[in-house]
């Protein structure tokens, strides 16, 4: 665990890099978000939530542009994270960055915005 208190994930098929940018915590996901990735994503988001709750950061950015796949179990993990952020705090804004050329990405995350429209934004950017 680095000074961000978040373990970087670097398994064969899935990676998460964490970085601080001012008061914002950036998580960059890459690889394949399949069943192998679920446990890693869950632990990373739990650590991120702990950092957010302790007010080390006040915003979260999740960049999924380098993901080939985000299966329903990974999305479920994100749903749980957003739900807890909303219901139990800290209620920080979460921005998901998707690749404008990869159509499944905004579609997969659309429901997350519906879950917490005031807290979740989805931004399309070049990959």
């Amino acid at each position, binding site marked *: 665990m680095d000074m961000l208190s978040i373990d970087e994930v670097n398994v064969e098929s899935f990676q998460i890099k964490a970085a601080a940018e001012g008061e914002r915590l950036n998580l960059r996901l890459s690889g394949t978000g399949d069943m192998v990735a679920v446990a890693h994503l869950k632990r990373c988001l739990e650590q991120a939530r702990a950092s957010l709750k302790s007010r080390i950061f006040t915003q979260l950015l999740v960049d999924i542009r380098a993901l080939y*796949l985000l*299966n329903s179990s990974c999305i*479920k993990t994100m749903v749980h994270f957003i739900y807890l952020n909303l219901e139990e705090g800290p209620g920080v804004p979460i921005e998901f960055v998707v690749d404008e050329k990869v159509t*499944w990405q905004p579609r997969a995350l*659309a429901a997350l915005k519906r*879950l917490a429209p005031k807290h979740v934004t989805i931004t399309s950017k070049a990959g």
Partner: protein
Amino acid sequence: MGAAGRKTIALLFDRLSSEYAAHLRRSIERAASQKGVSVLSVVGQLLGDVDASAVTQNQIYELVSPACVDGVVVVSATMGHYCGQEGLLALCRGYAPLPVCSVGVAIPGIPSLVIDNHMGMRTGVEHLMTEHACSRIAFIGGQKESIESNHRLAGYLAAHEQLGISADPRLVRHGDFTVKTGILAMRDLLKSGVPFDAVVAANDDMALGALDVLSDAGISVPRDVIVLGFDDINSAHFTRPSLSTLRQPMWWLGERAVDLILDQIAGRNVPELQAGPVDLVRRESCGCGYQVGVTLHPQQKDLGSVRDVIALYREPLTEAMRAAVAVPKDTLGNWPSQLLDALDQEFSGSEGRFSEAFEEILERAQREGASLDEFQRVVSVLRSEFRRFRLEKKDEDRYMDRVWHNARVLVGAASIRLLGRQKLEQQEVSQWLSWVGERLATSLSLSLLREQLVGSLAKLQIERCAVSLYTAPASKELKLLVACTESGQLAVAQDKFDHHQMAPRALFEGERPRHFVVMPISFETEMLGVGVFESGTMPTVYETLRQQVGSAVKGAILHREMVAQVTIRERLEKERIAGEARLAAEIQTSVQPAVLDVAELDLAAWSEPAAEAGGDYYDVLPAREGAWLAIGDVTGHGLASGLVMLMIQSMIAGLARQDCQLTPSAVVSAVGDALWDNVRRRLKRDDHATLTVLKYHKNGRFTFAGAHEDIIVWRKNTGKCEVVSTTGFWVGAVPSVRRMTQDAEIILELGDTLVLHTDGITEARNARQEQFSEERLVAIIESKGGLASHLIRDAITETVRGWTASVDDDMTLLVVTYVGG
């Protein structure tokens, strides 16, 4: 013939690490080597010890047989502490027809070598009474069953009787011949408050323990209390004060034991009982200091020079010097004579010759394992004897004192060097043992253990060894785990052999006699195998190694069993999962609509569960005014997902049939509420599902609600597809989806086709991990638009199956074409 093709003697011990055992083993191995005989020191525990672990280890004694040895020496002196003479006799008889000899205890019918325990102890106690005026002498004996201890106690009592001093029974204690029990007995004696002026112990180890306690209590030895031991072990020389004791004739015992066996093998008659002498060794703990040899002349005598004394008294001087050092006669050659020659040359003008010769003898003595300390006695003998002569050459007196002084310095320096070297060796061995222990403890397979043993034993200076394990519990067959010689690992044609053989025969072969230590490889009460290690390193190495190998073998076996258990459990788990998957697939397919028959609509469906079935769901429920269509996907896989899917199916079917006024959003919201309650609160799971419910109202009109995959609508008039996003949220992911769930509408024109699918289709991956994608799905639909629903379905399924190598997720497809009335 023994296993080595030469005569081999088994030497049976209960432990290696006592000084008595080490000394006796060394003397027997030495005597055997001189006669071209090999020795297998077979080490178990005390006979008759009821401790379960000891009983297990004692199985090693049963392996001694004509298959590996030609005769057996039983060290009864220590082995019989518990079982007594009867147990020893039974053991010895069990080896018939092999020649047997007993060392330490006289066993009827068995050639026995004993020391005169009774007379030895009596002499010692009488010495304390007559020369030190002791009258209240405490006795610390061994186990009450010990024959040797009882003989020594009898000697103690006989001395009292002889000198008319009454023995106080309150001053008798019993230990088990260890330092620890000597400490306990001494503490108990002090605590009792019964006065005593001397303590005699049945062996040196217990006497050393008593010395420690007295020192801690501030009682001065020998000023306040005199202490006397028995055996004359090495440590007795180095304690402060040095321990006065009764010396066992260890070299005599070793030589005679080998001769007794060889004589029996040769068919010669042997005496049933031979007793070796016990010498009183006077050191500081009785107040005598060093005993100073024989006296050539009680009164002083006039003589010309040192050379005259040597010439006249060479023989008695030689004997006096020899008596001062406890090594066999032939061990160091004729060293007293060499020393006298050097002394003669020293006084003929060759200055330094005596020191030179003395140093050379000390080096030899050190190599032979003799106690260098005893050479101080040699100097004392010479000094004492030469002082009895008044020499005409007066200057020789002063010169002689310088010679003795130099000799004492040499002994001191050699002793310190030896102690330093021994300490270094001990440290090195201790470090290697620790290193070996770590490696063996982490060898979780027998093959890894084999590799580690090969590397480890060389570090412990054990060139030849074999470790073999029983092929099954209670088996009599051993299977070789590893065998090494100085040339490397030993290859053997037969790696399985009868356990009486102990090790592959090749291990014992060679041009010279080799001596081995044979030990049980056991763990607690389980006899795992036999270890045979070449003799030559410190006794503690073998005992530690035995425990380390035993634990490591047990660990490796347990690990192997655990892996087997885990494999079985994994297989059962896989079978369970496969069973669940089959059940889930059955649930999934069994609740699918049997007939797709809705007025105005041409319907075709396809659903293929993956190997680990997830929870894909679709349904078509005809209603009075149209129909209900639904499609969804429960997250996760297996039976639980299948059950959640079944819940959704049941709820929708129930709701759709009950109230035709319900809207899709109401159905989705109701399902969402119920699912949260059922799954989260009751099942304590976190499954949720994508779900879109469509209500068909006739004339091509659909209303829908709920979040699932996009709905693809092919328009006949454009030949293109429209992608309609589903809104809302997943059911079961949050307590309620009502706020996020709204109805929307799709109107199909005649010939238009609506396609519902699950993500198993769009996320199906090819060998390059590319997803099939919604774009490819749309392209197929557009290419087949206008065809009957089942043809569109078939085109899609065929393409998707060709795309993906393996089905990772359930795939479901529902194709609906508005064909009108």
